[in-house]
């Protein structure tokens, strides 16, 4: 029974969503939007579970003096500061429990939550994102080693695209007459991106789409039960 009821709900909701895709008449027309709304409401409540989990896991690690435990204190303190600032003084769009004083606004320029968000959080996020450039360089170095015919092909394509997308590419092949314009590096790079690359991406997307349909049908029909903890 513990599994049958969720499976029945899944079947009914899944079948209704599929049917509503083809029926524009009421009440099917707004079904998908309504269910998306329900999902948002449930996920809004579920965020409390996430925050409790965050608190619990960090407190356990601090109390057990797990390796690097001071970092978990920093995580909890940072979390608490953001929550307190948000609830007490609110944000630029949302008022808090108490209005931000003139002195506070003069000091920070904005509300405390917005200040921390803009000057700490956004910069930390940008720092993490910028790491991507370095990782891309190291991953490319490994991926572009000509170990097999396939990786050699990848290397050649990558070099052509990289050169074609820079001014060096135009300079290197600038002397080629217009009648042989297809040999210009920027044109070769565009060709690779427009045809082989797009074709490959579309193939992956079509197959992934089929995979989504197959998985959805398995879940709706109750064949796939792993998400319920079944086999």
């Amino acid at each position, binding site marked *: 029974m513990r599994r049958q009821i969720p499976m029945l709900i899944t079947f009914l909701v899944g079948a209704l969503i599929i049917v509503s895709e*083809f029926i524009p008449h009421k009440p099917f027309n707004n079904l998908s939007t309504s269910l998306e709304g329900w999902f948002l409401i449930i996920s809004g409540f579920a965020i409390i579970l996430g925050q409790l989990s965050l608190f619990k896991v960090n407190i356990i690690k601090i109390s057990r003096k797990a390796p690097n435990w001071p*970092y978990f204190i920093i995580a909890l303190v940072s979390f608490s500061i953001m929550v307190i600032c948000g609830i007490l003084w609110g944000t630029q769009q949302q008022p808090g429990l108490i209005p931000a004083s003139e002195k506070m606004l003069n000091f920070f320029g904005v509300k405390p939550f917005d200040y921390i968000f803009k000057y700490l959080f956004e910069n930390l996020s940008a720092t993490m994102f910028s790491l991507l450039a370095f990782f891309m360089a190291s991953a490319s170095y490994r991926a572009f080693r000509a170990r097999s015919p396939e990786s050699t092909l990848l290397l050649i394509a990558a070099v052509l695209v990289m050169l074609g997308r820079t001014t060096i590419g135009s300079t290197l092949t600038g002397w080629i007459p217009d009648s042989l314009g297809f040999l210009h590096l920027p044109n070769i790079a565009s060709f690779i991106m427009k045809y082989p690359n797009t074709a490959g991406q579309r193939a992956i997307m079509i197959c992934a789409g*089929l995979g989504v349909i197959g998985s959805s049908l398995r879940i709706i029909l109750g064949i796939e039960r792993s998400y319920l903890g079944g086999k």
Partner: protein
Amino acid sequence: MRVSFFIILCICFTFSLYAQDITFTAADNPNDDGGALLLQWNVPLSYPEMILTRSIDRKNYIEIAAVTPLLKSFIDDENIEDGQEYFYKLSVLNIEGETLQSFSASAIAKAEWFNTDKISLLIMTILLGSAITYFIFSARKGKRLYIRKISGLDTIEEAVGRATEMGKPLLFVPGIMDLDDMQTIAGLNILGHLAEKVAQYDSTIHVPVCRSMVLSTAKEIVKESYLRAGRPDAFKPDSVFYLTDDQFGYVAGVDGIILREKPAATFYLGAFYAESLILAETGFESGAIQIAGTAMPTQIPFFVAACDYTLIGEELFAASAYLSNEPNQLGSLKGQDVGKAIIIITLVVGVVLEMCGIHFLKDFLVTH
């Protein structure tokens, strides 16, 4: 002189109105839930200005829009009630704003019970659904189905064994999207099989998640897997934990776990964006066996470059069925292959027809 010129101009203009077929029609807007009417006109492009007016009693007309001949159509969905007849006038104005000529039409709005724009989608759904159902029943009857090997999935047991031998944990990352993304569900399905192996080998697994809904589901899946493996006591509720909803905050957290815990194997299975390479490269630096899977075409190259095994697109969705080895699920995979064959045939036939100048198939697929 000026008056005579204006009269000549008006006469020419009046003649030009009759020089070509002028049509103005009103009809129910097709394939909608009612509350809208479609107005279409075919008038000379030389018409300077036109206005659309609406009435419910043919007496009091209210202006609803200023339109041009080039626009050709207009959907009126402002305060339209189903079942009520609406009367429209398309009035052609001169430069002084006087009505030169007007055309009338009327229509009643209604909601449709079937969207004819989606016939091709319905055909595809029926074909695919039938193929999947047929192969599921064939597999149930004991028909042997060939499913090609997926190395990344065959390595799961090896990775868990390696982690057990090394005394190190495994790390499972279910992507950064919520449960409404099929990739996350596919990732969680694999987590169930992986957690069962972890429980059997008495190893440990860390599952940091990015969404609260995923937290509850992943926790339940891991718990059930331990139960199925006959080791409910070994389940640690804190092995599945929430980090943050923020993309790069989550990356920082997971990277920290990889660098501190040095997992023996890392699994990135779900929906990933820019964080994919940061995670995979950090995992590579730590020396872990890495198995990744996503249907994001832009992130697959990163995983291929940095991971030992990558499940590309549909392989991610097929993984759970493949691992379960159940005839029912394997049959559905075979059905998907039929769908792939249908798509390939449609593409090839479509290309050939287009090259021959026959546009029927393309037009049908585009409009339906």
